[in-house]
């Protein structure tokens, strides 16, 4: 009796089941990366099948260049971290300026934020590359400004603007009762901000901040367009020195995609995890 009802019930439950499955469907595991790796390997072997047997196999070539490409990628990471540091510091100041009680300062910071937020990253990168001097002097000492540092500064501009919005958004998202409570306890504005408001904001800012870092990391390849020798530039050089074989293109570019994926995907997963965790706790 029971089994028969169970059977007839199943069709009713099916759609609901399918839905619960798709609800958090980006709960994806390692195999994302594995698929990329497969594409990488498949295209390599496909290229191998096409190419002259005398020439070295595609996979061997990729293996030979791998250490250099990975070193270049570490350079990308270094740029991203430095730019994130500069951008976060400048963006926090700018964001606090956006919530300043001084209307003039508030408007000014708002404008700077919007200006750099609305500009494409690549344009800002060009802007920094061409308009920053190659060296500057402080107190008679000449400090050189190499290309990669200029690129880092160029990348930190949009980071700064986005950070500014994150700070403003986080502070505004706190219930006004927090300000009122602190005020009634005779805290000064500065004390309220540093002791009450900002500590609560850090939790809210963390997921969007990490998301921003992930976007920045992916933007570091833009530096190749302006001639900084990071991973994309190195890939181009590797391809050129192998004689520009078309069968090498797909494996090399897939490899670059793969290393970025391996670096950025865990960050994205962690961001989603934190978002959920903080959302529940409020």
């Amino acid at each position, binding site marked *: 009796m029971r089994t028969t*009802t169970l059977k*007839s019930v199943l069709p*009713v439950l099916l759609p609901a089941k399918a839905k619960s499955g798709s609800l958090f469907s980006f709960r994806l595991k390692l195999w994302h990366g594995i698929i990329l790796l497969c594409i990488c390997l498949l295209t390599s072997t496909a290229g191998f099948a096409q190419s002259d047997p005398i020439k070295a196999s595609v996979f061997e070539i990729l293996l030979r260049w791998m250490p250099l490409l990975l070193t270049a990628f570490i350079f990308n990471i270094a740029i991203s971290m430095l730019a994130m540091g500069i951008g976060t510091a400048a963006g926090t100041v700018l964001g606090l300026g956006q919530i300043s009680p001084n209307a003039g300062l508030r408007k000014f910071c708002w404008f700077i934020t919007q200006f750099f937020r609305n500009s494409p990253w690549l344009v800002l990168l060009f802007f920094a590359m061409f308009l920053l001097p190659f060296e500057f002097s402080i107190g008679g000492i000449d400090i050189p400004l190499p290309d990669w540092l200029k690129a880092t500064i160029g990348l930190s501009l949009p980071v700064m603007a986005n950070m500014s919005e994150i700070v403003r958004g986080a502070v505004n998202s706190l219930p006004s009762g927090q300000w009122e409570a602190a005020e009634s306890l005779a805290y000064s504005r500065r004390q309220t901000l540093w002791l009450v408001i900002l500590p609560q904001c850090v939790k809210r800012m963390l997921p969007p901040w990490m998301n921003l870092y992930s976007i920045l990391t992916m933007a570091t390849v833009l530096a190749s367009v302006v001639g900084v020798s990071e991973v994309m530039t190195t890939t181009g050089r590797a391809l050129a020195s192998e004689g520009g074989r078309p069968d090498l293109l797909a494996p090399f570019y897939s490899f670059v995609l793969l290393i970025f994926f391996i670096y950025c995907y865990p960050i994205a997963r962690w961001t989603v995890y934190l978002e959920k965790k903080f959302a529940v706790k409020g």
Partner: protein
Amino acid sequence: MTWTINEPMVSIRDVYKSFGAFEVLKGISLDVMKGEVICIIGPSGSGKSTLIRCINALNDIQKGSILVEGQEVNDPKLDKLELRKKVGMVFQQYNLFPHKTALQNIMMAPVRVLKQDKAEVEKIARELIRKVRLEGKEDAYPGELSGGQQQRVAIARSLAMNPDVILFDEVTAALDPETVGEVLQTIKLLAEEGMTCILVTHEMAFAREVADHIYFTDRGVIVEHGPPETFFSEAKDPRTKEFLSQIL
């Protein structure tokens, strides 16, 4: 089809319903004549809401028969549109369409589903708004209305389809106490006009006042039923007694 006014308008016979392994309805039978007002009471989770959702085929049943004006609901070839023209429903959470004004909410189904003339429908809709005493709220969005007002719009919305029977699924359960009265009054008005109503409710005083017949359900079966005069004073089953003693 062959239904006549002397037969029950809604006839439920030996209905079984389960969600997975959990049996919600275990052989329910009841009849509702035209113009009757039926109240179904019982503890939470006793299957009351499921039962009336089965009447207009929002939930399907595993076994048994539900006839609405002679039309079998438990039938894979059921013409749901035909059924839902006859059976209106009002929900606990009002479920108004948030992107439409009160007037548009009422007009939408007659215009889109029944393809009635828009000007004609608007005239009827404005009359219905007057009937539920919401004059002046025609162009308000649901989000701008109180719970009681939203629920009255929902009642007007189902009336606009000109149904033969209306199902009320705990329509006052989500309301603030001060707005419960206005909704109950609207339902009472409908009952007095001779509308066939099936209510699931926790408002015992209201049930006693308007119901022609009261059914008490617990754990998927009808434990006891009778006219309100005798039901409340002469309950026989210990489960009914216990429930009534808790709630009265």
